[in-house]
């Protein structure tokens, strides 16, 4: 698991094989060129004015807060779920694993409807939640977090499960002989070993939550300040001023790229 020998072999660029480099650069271009298109079209002159609008900042703040909370929820529930899928054997595991992808395949708006059906005021659980604890989720910031977590969790679960499957289980055995319970072994050995996979999953999860639109607007509505995240603001801007929508998207992008670029290396280099 040491990465130092690889580091010792030095940069790869010198003799990186073209069957890898050519498609890699094509892929990168494919992902990044459309961004260039947006940048070209963006109305740079009005940018400062837009950024000054309190609603934009509010939506941005709300987006960042809810996406981060949703990622936290997903980590809390998703990493254990991934572990169960990768390490436990129980009847129907294949089905359960496939079911985890449900929120991915469900068109987000339908996902939002499904959430309303279950957690809405008249929903299966929602009624009980409201009756017993006085909790209503739809049309609240908490609802945004729920919608984002619902849509983003599969990304976390599936990447972490993949990482767990690729990890060497003999380290867990070594931990067991040292008296570590499965929980301790998971926490202190397995988790750090698959940290790159967890981080990859969390990044996917966070980014997906940040860009979530359909489930959020359906389940939580579109209220400035409480549930209007950036993608919702972008949607509304598209109704009135398409250029503004591009500016808003670029702001969202820039913030997320800066955050990801500054966070990831520090995290990924630790294990």
């Amino acid at each position, binding site marked *: 698991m040491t990465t130092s020998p690889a580091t010792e072999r030095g940069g790869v660029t010198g003799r990186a094989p073209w069957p890898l480099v050519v498609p890699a650069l094509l892929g990168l271009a494919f992902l990044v060129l459309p961004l260039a298109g947006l940048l070209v079209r963006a109305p740079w002159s009005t940018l400062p004015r837009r950024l000054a609008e309190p609603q934009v900042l509010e939506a941005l703040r709300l987006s960042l807060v809810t996406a981060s909370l949703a990622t936290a929820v997903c980590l809390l529930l998703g990493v254990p779920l991934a572990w169960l899928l990768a390490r436990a054997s129980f009847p129907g595991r294949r089905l359960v694993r496939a079911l985890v992808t449900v929120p991915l395949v469900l068109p987000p708006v339908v996902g939002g409807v499904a959430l*309303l*059906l279950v957690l809405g005021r008249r*929903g299966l659980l929602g009624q009980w939640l409201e009756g017993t604890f006085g909790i209503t989720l*739809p*049309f609240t910031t908490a609802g945004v977090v729920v919608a984002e977590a619902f849509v983003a969790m599969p990304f976390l679960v599936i990447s972490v499960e993949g990482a767990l499957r690729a990890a060497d289980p003999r380290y867990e055995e070594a931990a067991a002989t040292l008296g570590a319970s499965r929980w301790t072994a998971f926490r202190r050995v397995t988790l750090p070993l698959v940290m790159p996979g967890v981080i990859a999953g969390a990044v996917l999860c966070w980014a997906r939550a940040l860009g979530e639109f359909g489930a959020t607007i*359906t389940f939580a*509505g579109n209220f400035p300040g409480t549930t209007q995240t950036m993608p919702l603001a972008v949607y509304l801007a598209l*109704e009135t001023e*398409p250029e503004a929508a591009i500016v808003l998207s670029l702001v969202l992008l820039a913030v997320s790229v800066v955050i990801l670029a500054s966070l990831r290396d520090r995290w990924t280099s630790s294990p």
Partner: protein
Amino acid sequence: AGQVGGTPAAEGDRTLTVFAAASLTGSFTEIGWAFEAAHPGTAVRFNFGSSATLAQQIVQGAPADVFAAASPATMKPVTDASLAAGAPVTFARNKLRIAVPAGNPAKVDALEDLADARVKVALCARQVPCGAAAVKALDAAGLKVTPVTLEQDVKATLTKVELGEVDAALVYQTDVIAAAGKVKGIAFPEADQAVNDYPVAALAKAPAGDLARRFVDLVLSRQGRQTLAAAGFEVVPAP
């Protein structure tokens, strides 16, 4: 936009929640300001979205006071569930226009031109109001148009025109006005056969019931209609 201080306690700090079709974003936001000015201590919260989604939310118990939909069909689930306080009132109409990109590369100037196979046309899908209207207009003209795409809403249709991906599309007058400069609108006679009505209703279980009625009144008032007309809506004569 909560109000702090300066307001008589009698009015209290109240919030009015309005669910409105996304195409009303501009005009209703303005009407909302007017309403807040007229009712100090009251904040108007908007939930703009697809009319169908909004209806779904209301049926599922969303805390809404007023619902303004983009078509009678999308209002229907709400009235069916007896959630509207009284019959919905039509407050605005929208008429179709042919939208062509700036420069009109395909030289479109009448509805018949859309039937030309060389002209790339975008229409709204039949399921959304502007699509239903387009079908009506084309039927009225006895034209068979094969579009390249059936868009999910009118803004998406308009985007295709703005970016020059299609040579022509049928959109609303309001959209042509909003996209002023980037698309050109062409009026056509059959548009009158395909007018789309916007109904509004105060809701039965409105948490702010009295305010809801007053908001509907404001929409129907002269001031409201002026705002809507400025956005390109055809204004319904006062009842």
